[in-house]
């Protein structure tokens, strides 16, 4: 069930360079949102840009939803300019989130976040922990500026593996290289992945060897976010057939085996 919150209110704003964390008062949405679901935020009131922007639920606390985003263009610039007290119109929670197995396994579960891809994983990690799972978080980026959320994840006591391409923090190299080294040792029972398409593809490739049950959170330009425009499709297997599938409805989270990566431009 999705809701429209006309009177969302920014109650907190934290920024690390291009990365921003907004707390938005939206009680009804906060109550029902699940990890991996997303919101459609109206980034402005002047009608420009035209479309809302899809942003994952980063965290929920009482009557507030939090979003974590990177500034990449017009919409996120406007979003980053929001200050406590500002109003924001949002729709959510939208889409299908990550699945959390009822029975915790002895083996840990691994969460992989690349850059802004970490956004939905903090919420997920907390929920997994609450359900008795052992989440381990892999968090990678180009430089240490791309890993601002370590500031939260560390004190929150999660086991963290960090990687930066310039070696400025943690493992020196790609997050996928670090995973290649660690996964065989950690033998996780599940993988949850969100990040740049290249990173996710590579990981899906590696996982053909590991064949660990894995879920990926996909992205596409979205016209509506609630299933009416058919603009946000990926090619997804449904049994034998493959179909252009609305990730805002049937996703954005999909099990690795149904995603046909090659089909994407």
């Amino acid at each position, binding site marked *: 069930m999705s809701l429209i919150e006309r009177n969302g209110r920014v109650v907190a704003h934290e920024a690390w360079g291009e990365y921003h964390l907004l707390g938005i008062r939206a009680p009804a949405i906060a109550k029902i949102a699940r990890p991996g679901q997303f919101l459609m935020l109206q980034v402005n009131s002047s009608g420009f840009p035209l479309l809302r922007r899809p942003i994952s639920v980063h965290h929920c606390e009482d009557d507030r939803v939090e979003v974590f985003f990177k500034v990449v263009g017009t919409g996120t610039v406007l979003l980053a300019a929001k200050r406590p007290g500002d109003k924001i119109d949002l729709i959510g929670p939208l889409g299908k989130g990550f699945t959390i197995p009822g029975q915790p396994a002895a083996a840990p579960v691994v969460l992989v976040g690349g850059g802004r891809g970490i956004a939905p994983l903090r919420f997920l990690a907390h929920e997994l922990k609450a359900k008795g799972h052992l989440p381990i978080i892999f968090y990678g980026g180009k430089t240490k500026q791309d890993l601002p959320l370590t500031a939260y994840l560390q004190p929150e006591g999660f086991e963290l593996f960090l990687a930066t391409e310039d070696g400025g923090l943690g493992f020196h190299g790609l997050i996928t290289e670090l995973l290649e080294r660690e996964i065989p040792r950690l033998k996780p029972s599940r993988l949850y992945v969100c990040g740049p398409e290249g990173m996710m593809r590579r990981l899906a490739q590696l996982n053909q060897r590991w064949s660990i049950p894995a879920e990926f959170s996909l992205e596409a330009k979205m016209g*509506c976010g609630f299933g009416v425009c058919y603009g946000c*499709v990926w090619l997804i297997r449904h049994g034998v057939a493959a179909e252009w599938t609305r990730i805002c409805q049937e996703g954005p989270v999909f099990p690795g085996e149904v995603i046909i990566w090659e089909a994407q431009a």
Partner: protein
Amino acid sequence: MTDLSCDLGFMKLANPVIAASGTFGYGIEMEPFLNLEALGAYIVKGLYLRPRPGNPPPRLAETPAGLINSIGLQGVGVEAFVASVLPRLRKYRTPLIVNVCGETEEEYAAVIEFLDKEDGIAAYELNISCPNIKKNGLCPALSPEATFKVVSSARKVSRRPVITKLSPNVTDIVTIALAAEEAGSDAVSLVNTFLAMVVDVDSRRPVLRNIFGGLSGPAIKPIALRMVFQVSRRLKIPVIGCGGIMTGRDALEFILAGARAVEVGTANLVDPQATLRIIKEIEEYCHSRGIERVSELIGSLILD
């Protein structure tokens, strides 16, 4: 209380606001956000005889005050529509209009013949103007002859009113509208989207995989309004205006220019309750000016 009712001759609507095809899914997806009973009517996504995969992504590009789409009419086809969608829509009294598509004249007729067997449908909108199917946006609505042929064959088989949806990508939309009227169309709706493209200068590629797509949204409103004005002064059948309507004032521009009803498209994507807001704003406009019937406004533009 203003009388918002809208008489299309072949069909009476509670108000002149219609949800436009392709921006309202199959109606069902909108149930979380609004009560379909509040609308004048709603038009479901374009349907072909068979299911269609649609175009590969990226399918969307945002432009200044506009949206370009190249969905390519992905759809379930009439059989699945009748089997799994139509039953869920029958509970609504709001007129359901099916947007009918076809590769050939025969396919349009076949879709209509198939749907004519079912009840719970109020009318058909012939989508002869989708720019996303053939190369260079070719479609029947680009020529009066092709328009006449598709419309008359559809008109012959249909037991229901037929609305012909026109393309703005033409030199002389009046001639094409007249061809639709002559072919027996019960109404025309205009406009569909403008053939357009965007380039990503970083990748040096077109943003859309399909290269071209259809432009909609506020950007096109002034051109759509001009066409509605031109067409409604020449046709006897009702004209339904469409293109960039985001507010009640936008809708009223089309009504003053001669439209009996309006279709709201892209606005539904930005705000799933846009149609409700637009109805409210039309009512407020009339109320504050002591206009008792919105129908009084149709074509009442003052020219001197």
